[in-house]
């Protein structure tokens, strides 16, 4: 059925019962990633702690299992990071999927490595990281008309 292991139980469980989904009101920064090709959308809210590190991340994701699981893992891994560190984490992950180059990608994210064989689905996994970067860099969150 899933010969190359893209849909590991961990991914399906995360998609089904996300831990970090929730309301974004009151967030220090908010960002959004959309994929116009498929209609997937991830909204992210970030709360910084007293030292400027990422204290809490919440997401509202609409999309496939890959998109939902990736958003939830992003929210988990970003916590405790410097803002720049979280951005670099996302960029390294994106580079891994796009080029295969592992430039210090967090091992937890290797569950998505089979996406290298599904080029059309890479954006599903990187969407949440784009939204996080938008939330951290202050790029205005797009308000979706149908949301």
């Amino acid at each position: 059925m899933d010969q190359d292991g893209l849909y590991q139980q961990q991914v399906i469980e995360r998609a089904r019962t996300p831990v970090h989904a929730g309301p974004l009101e009151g967030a220090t920064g908010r960002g959004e990633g959309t994929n116009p090709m498929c209609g997937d959308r991830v909204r992210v809210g970030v709360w910084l702690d007293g030292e400027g590190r990422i204290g809490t991340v919440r997401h509202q994701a609409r999309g496939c299992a890959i998109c939902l699981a990736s958003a939830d893992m992003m929210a988990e891994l970003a916590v405790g990071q410097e803002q720049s560190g979280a951005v670099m984490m996302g960029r390294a992950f994106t580079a891994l999927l796009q080029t295969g180059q592992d430039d210090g990608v967090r091992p937890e994210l290797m569950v998505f490595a089979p996406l290298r064989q599904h080029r059309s689905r890479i954006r599903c996994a990187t969407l949440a990281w784009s939204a996080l970067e938008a939330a951290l860099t202050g790029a205005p969150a797009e308000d979706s008309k149908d949301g």
Partner: protein
Amino acid sequence: MDVPPVVMIDPIDSLRDRRADFPILGETVHGRPLVFLDSAASAQKPVQVIDAMGDAMRTQYANIHRGLHWMSERTTDVYEAVRDQVAGLIGASAREEVIFTRNSTEAINLVAYSFGSMMRPGQAVVISEMEHHANLVPWQMLRDRTGIELRVAPITDDGDIELDALERLVADGKVALVAVTHMSNVLGTVTPARQIADIAHAAGARVLFDGSQFVVHRRVDVQAIDADFYTFTGHKLYGPTGIGVLWGRRELLDAMPPFMGGGDMISSVTFERSTWANVPHKFEAGTPAIIETIGLGAAISYIEAIGYEAVAAHEAALVEYALPRLAEVPGLHVVGAPAERGGVISFTMDDVHPHDIATLLDRNGIAVRAGHHCAEPLMRRLGLSATARASFALYTTREEVDALASTLTQIRGFFV
């Protein structure tokens, strides 16, 4: 006396031998035999089309309409013969009414630009809620350019155009054109073209049908449906990409200004002004897609040899077989229940996103489309962000439908 037994061939099996015409169907994907259920996006090509294009390039090719040499004249003859084929295919009353475009999208853009340039603010175009972006965005662009109004005819929850509402939309006499699909690429709905044309004409409007899907499955007769414009594309009709058709009534095409300027579309050119060639050449600027047009001709010959009656019977039987098979899949919901459905079935599945369905089907060699199918407003109307879509062609078999249904059942079990 021995009476030979009457053998009733199941329509689904009647075209089975034709699969051998499509070399790609022998390929494997991820180690599995290819099950290609994405023909509504683009159909596979029979060897007759492949060879016709290759033979043209190998043995008989030159630019057309202008060469004073044997190769050019012969190639012109072959190219122009396809115009006759298209005219015959759709029942055009004159070959000059057939204009070659790049695809159906370009054909609709041509009408939106050229016919649209003759509209005035206060006039309106009516489309339906289930249009492909190709029959929506050009009219939005026309609206924004000229100040016309764009009206949208609603559909029922089953996926049929609400004809009463359409009548009301055209009742004020301001509608210059009703532009709707002849078969939905999402719902498979075959629209009642003649009724729509009658409603449009009674209100003084012209009517355009986007026949990109319909022409693949049923014979088009532009006279019987009383169309004013009809568009389709070659690559869904087992032909190549890069060639499409606009058919229009001669008196309309004659009155319309050119779409693009350049070579081949002029009568005379000076630095001060140019005059236009007659139709169809007025709308065919530049060197056309010669090889692709020849490929379209081969595709039409191929379909005509099989016969639309056989194609339509095969497809109808396949849809009739597929709908209950898919209904057996736990959590699966077929989208829409139109009065008349072509070989397109969109569906969703509880707890499984269409993209995950498509990826897992692909890992099992089954190609379907997933997403909004270039019909975002329709998705919104249906309250969906995406669907998976299986679409059938003349080479689709019962076993392929079975493979789809059983793999979908496995996918469902995988997620729940």
